[in-house]
């Protein structure tokens, strides 16, 4: 099989510790294009794979600021410019009364950018992904742990990588078709 038609090689493990150890060893071995799959978040895994910070907090901050400024600007424009009404002699720009709506708009925009940002950065929705072609991968959402080294990694070699994965004591190593 040529390495161009396969997505990668996937090793299956029984417990989170073996997966984290495997990911660390693969990273030490020089593999970079790889991903680990688990039924629940494992913090150590993220470090073991050598991945970077996520930009999500910045996206949420920007979303929140847009909501905050947008909400207040809307209230100002409506109350002072578009539809000025004298209510009990209060100033048109009665800012304390504008705070609750500004606050709610901030939270709304921040929460929306948080969820949409998370999905976008994760590339979801993605109905199909090559890893789903491995039948045993259905257990990744139950009780099994997978490490997949992708064929796009410069160090990837179908024979060499398979031999390396076998040294990690997996339950099974499967080929992932692209």
């Amino acid at each position, binding site marked *: 099989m040529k390495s161009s038609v396969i997505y990668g090689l996937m090793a299956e493990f029984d417990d*989170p510790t073996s997966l984290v150890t495997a*990911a660390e060893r693969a990273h030490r071995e020089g593999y970079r294009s790889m991903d680990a799959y688990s*039924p629940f978040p*494992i913090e150590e895994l993220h470090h073991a794979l050598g991945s970077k910070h996520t930009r999500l907090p910045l996206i949420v901050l920007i979303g*929140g600021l847009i909501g905050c400024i947008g909400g207040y600007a809307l209230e100002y424009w409506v109350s002072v410019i578009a539809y000025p009404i004298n209510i009990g002699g209060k100033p048109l720009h009665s800012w304390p009364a504008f705070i609750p709506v500004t*606050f709610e708009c901030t939270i709304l925009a921040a929460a929306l950018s948080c969820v949409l940002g998370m999905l976008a950065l994760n590339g*979801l929705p993605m*109905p199909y992904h090559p890893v789903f072609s491995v039948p045993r991968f259905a257990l*990744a959402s139950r009780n099994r742990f997978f490490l997949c080294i992708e064929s796009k990694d410069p160090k990837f070699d179908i024979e060499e990588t398979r031999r390396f994965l076998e040294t990690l004591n997996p339950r099974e190593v499967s080929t992932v078709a692209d």
Partner: protein
Amino acid sequence: MSDSLQPIEDPNQAVVGAGRPPVIAPGHTFSTVTDKISSIVLNRKTPLGWYLGFGAALMLTLLLLTALTYLIFKGVGIWGVNIPVGWGFAIVNFVWWIGIGHAGTLISAILLLLKQTWRTSINRFAEAMTLFAVACAGIFPVVHTGRPWLAYWLFPYPNTMDIWPQFRSPLIWDVFAVSTYATVSLLFWFVGLIPDLATLRDRSQSKVGRVIYGMLAMGWRGSAHHWHRYETAYLLLAGLATPLVVSVHTVVSFDFAVGIVPGWHTTIFPPYFVAGAIYSGFAMVMTLAIPIRAVYGLEDFITMRHLQNMAKVMLVTGLIVAYGYATEMFIAWYSGDKYEGFVPMNRMFGPYAVAYWSLILCNVIIPQLLWFKKIRTNVPTLFIISLIVNVGMWLERFVIVVTSLHRDFLPSSWGNYAPTFWDWSTFVGTIGLFLALLFLFLRFLPMISIAEMRTILPEAKVSEE
């Protein structure tokens, strides 16, 4: 960086601790937790009780539809509201339902930030309860506008009439607060569901199930990079929902406190409303959790620890609420204002004295039983107390809305309020809608977060080399 990304739960907490009941019964593994929760949705035969319960709830929902149809046909005149009591049941029920919703957000967001492991098995259905309670709450102000088909006028949008909402009015604040609350609660709930939907997709035996759960899971595959962003997003959402939940009932209390009606115009209202909301919400979570754990055999996951902790939260928030009642009394006297001073007298000895004393009995006196461990560990008693608190909190809103309005400054404009058949039908109907939605949720979605339950198992801990 690592601090903010710690596993949210302390895995050791799942092990039997020093004399306290565990949050999960010992002996569970990733597969047993997954199978037990997902089988309720996928494999187990739907219990007969589900059909009976859903059927009854659906009947009440039909009553709601009838009441609302007649209301739209005839107008709000079919209710007991009239000058001077223009707010009646609609606002009482609105505040009650919104308050109930608050416990869901409190459990899912605030207890998450405080790293309370025990929240894990109750947060999913508490969040669902929030959504359904907010859905019921939202009906009332909309139909109370009199012309509900024009309710969209509440939103600021460019229109040919060239008019805009009044942003100095607490009623507009309410529109923003409640719609933001509904949206954020839905997002929070859905984000929490994504990994579990993937589990259902992978475990479903039927093609329809695989397709529907598959679409909802959006291709979630449990990638480490995804989990990392997911966890960040979940924590950020919790951080956003925490001030939000406090703001929502604060804004609801502004509907009253910003007015000049005696008994409403007080600064104690925001904190006292928020405490009352959490109080009633926890009572409702308890009312639902106790039968659900018994019927679905979930005593391993919703343990005595959960019930005891909820009882303690109820005790604390109940005391805050009692303090609020005392402060209202004190300020009414201390203000020296005769209109304010009249309010507590009228509440205690006026035409609605029965409602007032029942509320004191339900909210202040009976919950003091929760001081006793014997009561906190007795499931049937807890269930009865939670029902009593639900009733008490409804009566509280009734007393606040009705007694203040029916005796204002001018004796010539005094009046009385009595709910009509249609008031009661709408109220009971929303309880039906709430239960019907809850039954559907229990049947089609995992009522406990499977992914989060896995994280608190001892085997989830990565051992150091």
